[in-house]
């Protein structure tokens, strides 16, 4: 979750704690598995408060876990006796969810709503306030024109998803050729997205100052689209609530790549991603290997964390790391910081995203839950094992059907495995088959 949203969420939770709306005496539940759920559970744990359960209307998510907390149906979670329960909601559908809880006998005081990615729509119909955002957006756009030139096209990636930016990079050449665009700037909103964009031959990459800038820019774009040469590189985005394309994701075989080729770049369903020609970055990769202690060809990087899809419990990763070590591999955890702790029995691996494909090719092996990092290294020659929760859905299909690297056309050499979250240890043997015991290194 982007820092600005995390801060918003924490501030609101803090306010609930201070005002006594949330206390240690209540049984706390969260409604809906999403980013806010994950962050709330983590934050409350730091305050020694445990979320006892996650309420889910989506039957395919019931029985799954988020941060070790199980998702159950709303009725099962609330039960008949619920006077000591409190439910936290963070969703744009909060009104319907609140209504559902009220109909089950909960009171208003027991339902706490977090406004993180969206604001509560004010009852008073505003004009001046939203216009301020539009004017700020216009200034941001004009600054872009001033910096580059009004002749330039501004291609905006309004998200922090590194996988999305990588996919954009693979489809951009065909889009530029089709539309005869030579002068353009790729506009991103985070340093990690900028680093991923650097993997490709993109002459100008501009990073906006923050999420507020993106919001204002999009407000200007939504009111006056014809005044700009802005193109939003996504099939939909929360800020652009007038675009509803995201709701057909996964329908009738339309996977991640298809959504972009059909609706974002209009290249047709047969268009395929073009992997970049990787630049020679030997010295930088050398530094990474020297500093971390990774050994070329004998290193497996494990990536247990994801923002979009489900994770596996630590037990799986610890057992995997132990088995790989016994087979002669060095095991490192791909860790982005304190929120992504290193798995016991491994060391931390950190390498800049712009050299991730080259670093992974040198390392030799990768095992991870499906995340944006998998897109970024899809072109590497490393042995890639990618894990999908069998029960995880994404819009209208399974996570595997939507995000499979092979189906997306990103690579055909990844081993992609669906696991059952109830029997996740069963998949351990399947994964280990891909990593035979290494011969001992001859001692000098």
């Amino acid at each position, binding site marked *: 979750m982007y820092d600005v949203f995390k801060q918003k969420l924490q501030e609101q939770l803090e306010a609930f704690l201070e005002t006594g709306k949330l206390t240690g005496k209540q049984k706390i539940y969260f409604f809906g598995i999403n980013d806010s759920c994950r962050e709330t559970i983590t934050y409350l744990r730091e305050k020694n408060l445990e979320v006892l359960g996650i309420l889910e209307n*989506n039957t395919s998510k019931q029985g799954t876990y988020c941060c070790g907390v199980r998702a159950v149906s709303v009725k099962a979670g609330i039960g008949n006796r619920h006077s000591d329960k409190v439910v936290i909601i963070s969703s744009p*559908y909060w*009104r*319907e969810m609140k*209504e559902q809880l009220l109909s089950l006998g909960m009171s208003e005081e027991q339902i706490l709503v977090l406004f993180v990615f969206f604001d509560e*729509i004010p009852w008073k*119909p*505003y*004009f001046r*306030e*939203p*216009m301020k955002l*539009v004017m700020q957006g*216009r200034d941001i756009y004009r600054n872009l024109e001033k910096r580059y030139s009004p002749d330039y096209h501004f291609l905006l990636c309004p998200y922090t998803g590194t996988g999305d930016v990588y996919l954009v990079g693979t489809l951009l050449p065909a889009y530029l050729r089709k539309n005869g665009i030579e002068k353009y700037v790729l506009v991103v909103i985070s340093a990690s997205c900028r680093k991923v964009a650097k993997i490709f031959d993109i002459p100008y990459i501009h990073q906006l100052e923050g999420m507020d800038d993106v919001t204002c820019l999009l*407000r200007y774009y*939504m*009111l*006056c*689209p*014809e*005044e700009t040469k802005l193109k*939003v590189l996504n*099939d939909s985005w929360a800020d*652009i*609530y*007038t*675009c*509803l*394309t995201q*709701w*057909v994701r996964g*329908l*009738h*075989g*339309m996977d991640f790549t298809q959504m972009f080729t*059909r*609706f974002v770049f*209009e290249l047709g*369903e047969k268009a395929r991603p073009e992997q970049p020609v990787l630049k020679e970055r030997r010295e930088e990769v050398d530094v990474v290997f020297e500093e971390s202690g990774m050994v070329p060809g004998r290193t497996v990087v494990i990536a247990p964390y994801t923002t979009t899809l489900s994770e596996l419990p630590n037990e799986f990763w610890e057992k995997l790391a132990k088995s790989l070590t016994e087979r002669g591999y060095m095991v490192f955890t791909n860790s982005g910081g304190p929120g992504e702790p290193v798995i016991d029995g491994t060391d931390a691996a950190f390498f800049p995203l712009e050299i991730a494909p080259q670093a992974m090719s040198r390392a030799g092996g990768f095992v991870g839950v499906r995340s944006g990092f998998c897109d970024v290294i899809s072109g590497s020659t490393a042995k890639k094992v990618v894990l999908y929760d069998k029960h995880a859905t994404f819009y*209208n299909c399974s996570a595997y059907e939507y995000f499979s690297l092979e189906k997306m056309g990103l690579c055909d050499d990844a081993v992609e495995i669906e696991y059952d979250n109830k029997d996740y240890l069963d998949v351990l043997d399947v994964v280990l088959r891909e990593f035979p015991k290494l011969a001992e290194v001859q001692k000098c």
Partner: protein
Amino acid sequence: MLREVRKARLGWKIWKKMMRRLRIDYDTAILVLPEKDEVWNECALRYFPNYAKRKSAKRCIIMARDREIVEKIRAMDIGMENCEVLCLARFKMDLLLKYYCLHKFFDNIVMMYMDEPHDNDTKRILQQGIVSIEEVVCLCFYQLREVPKHV
């Protein structure tokens, strides 16, 4: 930009007037039908009760662009009690949409445009030939989990 701002301002005034006259609150679900396409409108009306139920709406307002469509809807059995059908000129709907592009002023309103505003890909989605009108209406506009089975 001035022209767009002016349109949004007019849309704002229309919305304020509607709120007052029709006593709109969160117990109300509103459907705006700007298109002449009969198949499209019929589909929107067929599943509107499912949307209203999802929103726990106690009353509904349907706005059609001309009297002829209003009369056709009034003659239909939409399957909802406490439902008002009104006429709102297309240009006023467009102004309301422009205000909506400036500010999402209400959660319980669905404006069934096929290719407006700028980022509305509905026509392009349907032209792909693999997504049905029912799927677009139910999943995209009404954001139901699936296309409900109707008898």
